[in-house]
């Protein structure tokens, strides 16, 4: 017979297994990527890999600078578009929308969050690419195919709306009624109350939603690869084609096997992505901890 206490101990042991698996998967991924990145790191300096704009694997040039710039540009465009629009729509949904509208919009947003990225990519090819090549580009006097940094950024922004909106709506709605009342009884208007009290009270969650959106934009592969044009050059403008770190990994995988250094360079890109995501998560934790005293 095993005593009650004995069972308790057994469960405790058993329950640590899943987390051990998760942790060891993460560590072995990291170790594997480092191991496979070694050849490129031994033959080229880190500075060269990160800062050289020449990506020409056949000739032995493995500069990742174009992809790094592409990734940053696309992410920044996505955030610049998504953050204000998402926050204002979250404010509308949470504070101003009538009840029926509120629940409808909320379920639409839940659906949006669940749509696979390849669908966003397809819609972007069908709608956004022609729009950029036929209207937006010409408006600014630029000749573009529509497969561009801007197109990828806009596509990404649409993909992160639901993340930021749903977290913010949740956060705004959880601000207690008594706080709103306190502000209103002092004679503040509804907008002042939203701006100074609701928004401020919810700000830690707002920041964390932005960081989550950022993480999504940064790592998104499929939709970006479909509309960015996939050319490994530093883009001359937002209307130029480019590529990103995730996109270069996805689009060159398979053709790289024959060249050992090429393989290693791609592994290093993946490692870079992983490191940045980890740093980003740590940063997010710190920021949130600092703001939610």
């Amino acid at each position: 017979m095993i005593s009650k206490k004995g069972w308790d101990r057994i469960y405790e042991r058993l329950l640590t297994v899943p987390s051990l698996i998760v942790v060891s998967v993460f560590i072995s991924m990291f170790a594997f990527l480092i191991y496979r990145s070694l050849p490129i790191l031994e033959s080229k300096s880190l500075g060269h890999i990160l800062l050289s704009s020449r990506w020409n694997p056949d000739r032995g040039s493995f500069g990742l600078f174009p992809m790094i710039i592409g990734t940053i540009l696309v992410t920044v465009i996505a955030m610049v578009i998504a953050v204000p629009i998402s926050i204002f729509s979250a404010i509308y949904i949470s504070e101003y929308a009538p009840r029926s509208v509120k629940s409808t919009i909320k379920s639409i947003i839940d659906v949006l969050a669940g749509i696979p990225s390849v669908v966003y990519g397809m819609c972007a090819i069908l709608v956004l690419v022609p729009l950029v090549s036929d209207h937006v580009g010409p408006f600014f006097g630029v000749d573009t195919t529509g497969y561009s940094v801007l197109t990828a950024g806009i596509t990404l922004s649409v993909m992160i709306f639901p993340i930021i909106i749903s977290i913010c709506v949740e956060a705004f709605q959880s601000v207690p009624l008594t706080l709103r009342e306190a502000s209103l009884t002092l004679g503040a208007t509804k907008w002042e109350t939203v701006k100074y009290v609701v928004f401020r009270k919810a700000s830690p969650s707002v920041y964390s939603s932005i960081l989550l959106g950022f993480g999504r934009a940064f790592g998104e592969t499929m939709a970006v690869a479909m509309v960015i044009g996939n050319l490994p050059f530093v883009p001359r403008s937002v209307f130029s084609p480019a590529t990103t770190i995730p996109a270069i990994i996805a689009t060159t995988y398979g053709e790289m096997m024959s060249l050992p250094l090429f393989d290693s360079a791609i592994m290093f890109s993946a490692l870079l992505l992983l490191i940045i995501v980890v740093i980003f998560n740590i940063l997010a934790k710190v920021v949130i901890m600092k703001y939610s005293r």
Partner: protein
Amino acid sequence: MTDNKENRIVTKDLNVWIGKNHILKDVNIGIPPRGITVILGPSGCGKTTLLKTFNRLIDLVDGVKVRGTVLLDGTDVYHNTQDIEGVRKKMGLLCQRPTPLPMSIYDNVIYGLWVHGERSRKALDRKAEIYLKKVGLWAEVHDRLTDPATKLSLGQQQRLCLARGLAVEPEVILCDEPTSALDPTSSRKIENMLRELKSVYTIVLVTHTLRLAELLADHVIFIYGGRVVEQGDADQVFNNPTKKLTKAFMVGEIS
């Protein structure tokens, strides 16, 4: 009492429904401009609801329906063209639990002034000091005005809320069980402050505890089940209640 022209707040045939619940029934009361008027009654009888109809905080409640009239200094609070912010500014509210806004101690005190357009640093500093002194908080917090207000103790937070309310220079102070969440010492401080303030402000205090009512009331409105049972001077209501229900409540038979 209701027909007295001197009354600051008057309700006429006030009825409030929340959803299908009829919460307040034919409430006709008058609140005199000086002294403390205690709205007394057992839990759930509609005291908070009544208080919130005065400054239209009731508007925030989903599915609420208000019929009848609420007059503040003779003007209809529920009139279409009523400036709601103006009405609310005239009536400070002190809640059961302190409600520090998510900002510093200093910003809490000047919040009302700020939203009403005061931008002069000097004036704001001066007001912050005046009102923190008025509630006896200045000595305790003057060297940490930029700390978040939530770092204060509950009792201090409640006094901060009072200071914040007084800073917008209201004429009426509405208090909803302002001491029930506080320790005895902090409660005493708030009670004493209300007593001091009653010569300048109209004070309406909501409570279900007889002890507090007896301690502070100049006028009493006794409510039971959403209806006004009895209202009048504290002396008369406490010592010579005319209604059976009031008597029963005074001796603790109902609560």
